[in-house]
């Protein structure tokens, strides 16, 4: 008697529990962001020039500007961003799980990330490549001479994989020193715990610039990989992907069309000869409404954050400590790769 009561009750319990599950609900990210009142943006916890909090805890940088631009496009206010600093190890999960709405965290666009990790890259804001930095007194002038060297790498990045491929293809051996963060890698390299520091060339330049004696270090000429860095969002919400994509494109187009933060307001108020500028700034057409944004979203981005070139110069350009040349990241009209589809 006792046993049957017990067993039948257990069985009933299992049935009840399994029958009572709720269904999932799909929702649009743009609507959620609007409802939340701020954009949740995942950024690098500290790469000078790209994303780093200043002494007052205010986030600044080239990638941060992209978050600000998206916030400006949605809310007309670039400050409506909640920044989540993410290590390279947790960035994709944070995005997948909805902890952040977008990632602007110097992330390389690769096939498997796009397809297998179910992420959507919405453009490239910086064309980079992996390079090597060594102390000058090591007497090395090419990466091919690095056989037997100790190499500092950030774990969880494509650089770790590129490095393994590079040394294997060239038949060289090396000792990897995996490091959890950019800062730690830099400290280890300076202390001499590794002969070589490898990461994206832009970050190498940024880090070399912050050294006490930058001239004691050289960046080797080899670039061993393509690293197109760009913002990304989750798979499956194309409307939201469009918002981020066209925010970046607006910044690029503005530079192509000569619209800057200084003259954009004036151009918008008075109208211009060029219909594409008018469409970009919301004077003509309903481009903003198609995206589910205010029609002047382009104007907001450019007046409040600036165009692509302005953001580049302010954060990582040659006048800043990071001191990067435009190079591949010049406009297509000037020999670079930066190109925006037309606003039409």
């Amino acid at each position, binding site marked *: 008697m006792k046993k049957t009561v017990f067993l039948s009750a257990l069985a009933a319990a299992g049935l009840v529990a399994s029958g009572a599950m709720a269904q999932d609900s799909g929702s649009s990210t743009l609507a959620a962001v609007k409802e939340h009142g701020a954009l949740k943006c995942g950024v690098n916890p500290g790469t000078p020039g790209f994303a780093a909090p200043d002494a007052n805890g205010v986030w600044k940088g080239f990638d941060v500007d992209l978050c600000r631009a998206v916030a400006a496009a949605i809310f007309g206010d670039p400050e409506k961003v909640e920044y989540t600093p993410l290590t390279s190890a947790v960035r994709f999960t944070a995005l997948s799980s909805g902890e952040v709405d977008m990632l602007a965290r110097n992330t390389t666009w690769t096939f498997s*990330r796009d397809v297998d990790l179910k992420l959507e890259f919405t453009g490239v804001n910086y064309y980079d490549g992996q390079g090597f930095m060594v102390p000058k007194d090591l007497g090395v002038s090419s990466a091919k001479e690095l*056989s037997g060297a100790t190499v500092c790498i950030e*774990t969880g990045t494509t650089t*770790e994989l590129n490095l393994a491929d590079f040394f294997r293809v060239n038949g060289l051996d090396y000792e990897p020193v995996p490091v*959890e963060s950019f800062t730690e890698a830099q400290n280890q390299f300076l202390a001499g715990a590794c002969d070589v520091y490898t990461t994206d060339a832009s970050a190498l330049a940024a880090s070399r610039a912050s050294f006490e004696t930058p001239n004691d270090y050289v960046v080797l000429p080899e670039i061993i990989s393509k690293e197109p860095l760009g913002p990304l969002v989750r798979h499956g919400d194309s409307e939201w992907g469009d918002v981020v994509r066209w925010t970046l494109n607006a910044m690029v187009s503005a530079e192509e069309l000569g619209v800057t933060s200084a003259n954009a307001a004036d151009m918008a108020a008075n109208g211009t000869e060029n219909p594409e500028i008018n469409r970009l700034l919301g004077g003509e057409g309903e481009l903003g409404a198609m995206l589910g944004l205010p029609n002047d979203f382009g104007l907001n981005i450019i007046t409040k954050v600036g165009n692509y070139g302005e953001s580049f110069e302010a954060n990582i350009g040659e006048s800043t400590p990071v001191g990067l040349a435009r190079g591949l990241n010049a406009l297509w009209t000037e020999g670079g790769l930066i190109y925006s589809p037309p606003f039409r």
Partner: protein
Amino acid sequence: MTTMIDPPKADGFHISQLLYDTRYRSITIQVIAFIAFMFIALFLVMNVKSNLASLGKEIDFGFLKNPANYDIKQRLIEYDSTSSNFRAAMVGLLNTLFVAFLGCILATIIGVTAGVLRLSKNWLIAKIMTVYVETFRNIPVVIWIIATMAVLTETLPQPKSFRGENPDASMWLWDSIAVTGRGTYIPSPDWGAGSAFVVITFLLSLLGIWAFGRWAKRRFEATGQILPNFWIKIAIFFVPSLLVFFILGRPIGLNFPVLTGFNFKGGFELSNSFLALWLALSVYTGSFIAEIVRSGILAISKGQSEAAAALGIRPSRTMNLVILPQALRVIIPPLISQFLNLTKNSSLALAVGYQDLRATLGGTTMNNTGRELESMLLMMLIYLIVSLVISTGMNVYNKSMKLKER
């Protein structure tokens, strides 16, 4: 907890009995608890399913077979970047076990020494040990790991200081050990032809030592004569192996580290990340073990040492023969939990980049494949198994050590 037994009722079963009859109430409670448990479990599982579905993913452990594509510096088994993710995880697991095993040994040595010395009659030594214990156990182990790493990296000379005519740094012990800011290189054995004989002889002499010990003990019990056991054992330890070694023409050589290129090559490398983790974990856990040992010794009543003195046992031997064997029974259970803590704390390897299980399976592999759910679950399962195995093994040992009451 119910102690009252109701008299059995004559008539049949009523629903209300489920609540008020103490015989059935426990079933009711368990069923409710089980329903609640199933609800929670199913809630979690269904959430995972729907969340994965909305991301277009599914649970799939196939990634373990794919090539890992990254290199691991410290490895106890063969591995290169074309090996599978599973093999990478195994390399990591072995690294975890390696550092945990060595850590437990060193921590025990440090802990027992410090614990005994803390009770020393020498005031200064006792105070130094108190300072050691109180300093180390009150500061988080992560800070110790980071600090040890910083000491090793920044105060030791880098390989390039060993180079040139008048190097700034030199190797230790007649150029056999190189202590550098990257790691410590020690000579490794070089197994030549015939070295198997030496090893076999050595193992046989270990067996001989054991057999001699038993024989000597029986002889002592029978005749009361004490042989110079220690010296005879030492002789058995060294003489046969060395004889064979020289007769066969020194088949086992040493592979000395030599500075070639950027780094020392040859020999066995103990990387700084390993050393920092090992030393910091051992010294930190040692401070807890010292306290356990001290309180274990204090728990033995003073009468025991007085009785030993009355029997004429020298004070230096009282500790070994009377106090420690008894204290061990008090010491071992908390010691087990310290070993478990040390093993779990070895996952803090990520502070220094030692590639343990977390860094491979729960780090680079997880990151490159994007299989965080599978990787994390697998990793937790492995840690859980390791913990359970350690605690079971030590509990068995503890049982065998228990006072056998007759």
